[in-house]
């Protein structure tokens, strides 16, 4: 390192998150995960490993689960990002998958939970009646240190039983 501060141009971009467009000026190196948490205050997206392994940072980009720690916020311009804060219709009513996790005790500390929920929402939309093996395969990219996955799987089964449109 030569000790010189490198000046890079900030980019003015518009990013759509949970249906709302945000205009901001950011450095290209700002990761999408940090943008969501620090620029927008949406701290539901968690940062665990910052190299794509743990899944705590998973969000939806154009409806598809991606690692927000492996994207730069500037790349999200022109796309739609959905975070866990965007799941519930209102403060009063949880999304069916969130309600199922509540009812089946599918979380303990909750650190992995937002990443798991975002992974599961498109999964259940495409697979409304998954087998246990399919559920475990679907969450194989999300690490949980608390639950041993048992009640996570039960919560998914409950959500599937109830249907996502309940």
């Amino acid at each position, binding site marked *: 390192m030569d000790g010189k501060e*490198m*000046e*890079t141009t900030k980019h003015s971009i518009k990013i759509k998150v949970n249906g709302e467009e945000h205009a901001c000026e950011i450095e290209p*190196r700002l990761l999408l995960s940090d943008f969501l948490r620090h620029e927008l205050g949406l701290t539901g997206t968690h940062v665990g490993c910052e190299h794509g392994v743990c899944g705590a940072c*998973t969000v939806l980009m154009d409806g598809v*689960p991606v*690692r927000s720690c492996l994207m730069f916020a*500037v*790349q999200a311009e022109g796309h739609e990002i959905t975070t866990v804060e965007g799941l519930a219709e209102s403060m009063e009513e949880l999304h069916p998958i969130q309600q199922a996790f509540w009812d089946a005790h599918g979380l303990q500390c909750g650190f992995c939970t937002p990443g798991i929920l975002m992974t599961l929402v498109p999964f259940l939309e495409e697979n409304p009646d998954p087998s246990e093996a399919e559920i475990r395969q679907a969450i*194989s990219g999300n690490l949980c240190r608390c639950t041993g996955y048992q009640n996570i799987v039960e919560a998914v089964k409950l959500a599937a039983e109830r249907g996502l449109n309940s």
Partner: protein
Amino acid sequence: MKPPPFDYLRATSLEEALEFKAQHGEEAKFLAGGQSLIPTMNFRMVQPSILVDLNEIPELDYINLDSEGYLRIGAMTRQCRIEQDPEVERNEPLLHETIPFIAHPQIRNRGTIGGSLVHADPAAELPVIALATQAQLQVKSADGERWISGADFFQGMFMTDLGPEEILVEIKFPPIPERTGWSFMEVSRRSGDYAMMGVAAVVTLEENEICEDARLVYLNAGDGPVDAKEAAKILIGERGSAAVIEAVSEQASQKDIDPFGSIHATMDYQRHLASVLTTRVLKQAFSRASNT
């Protein structure tokens, strides 16, 4: 765990991407899916001063079967798309079988076939498949284009033949001969981890079950995908008997590969895995070849 500063250029066409690269040369790095590059930038192992984003170039995202039966895939095609494509399943089943072993579903939603090949991680699956299928890679620069085989493309750990102003644009898979079988297997400690060992096998049989062509390629077994040529030679002119397969496993695992060992698996264990996996993939490849 945050990258150092860099400048960002978003290319909206291949031409623009090549122009940016020609302007900036070595200073600029292409950003494909980012699933390998961004972690290395987060670790500050790689510090490009300029990133040229390829993710908004639709012309590099395609899967086409041409009139001669070649399966042609654009370099920016997402791994998840390849995983789900019925033409890939039909025409290049080895590729179809291997993709689900790459990392996790979320990674495959962004990761691209071209990005993985150019990153050239010795533990990656796609370089192994490029060699096992004898795919040809198309490389372009502002001045022209060329085709190169996988064998010539991979030059060492994270090193390829790609020049400073070049970009990989297409991967072309040749049609599979009749009576050809395939198999891919790998062993990792957790689903989605880098594998401790993995192998792809392709065998082609004559009418009487005699093998006339074979390839065995290993990952995490050297400084790039390892083509076990001496081991594969043992199969030529033979049937896939237990004795022949055992001889091939022995040659491959003890002589042809050169695994480095790591905290997850010692060299000896990697060789042991190679031996077991070789036997299994060959059995499956021979069985599939007989049934086509």
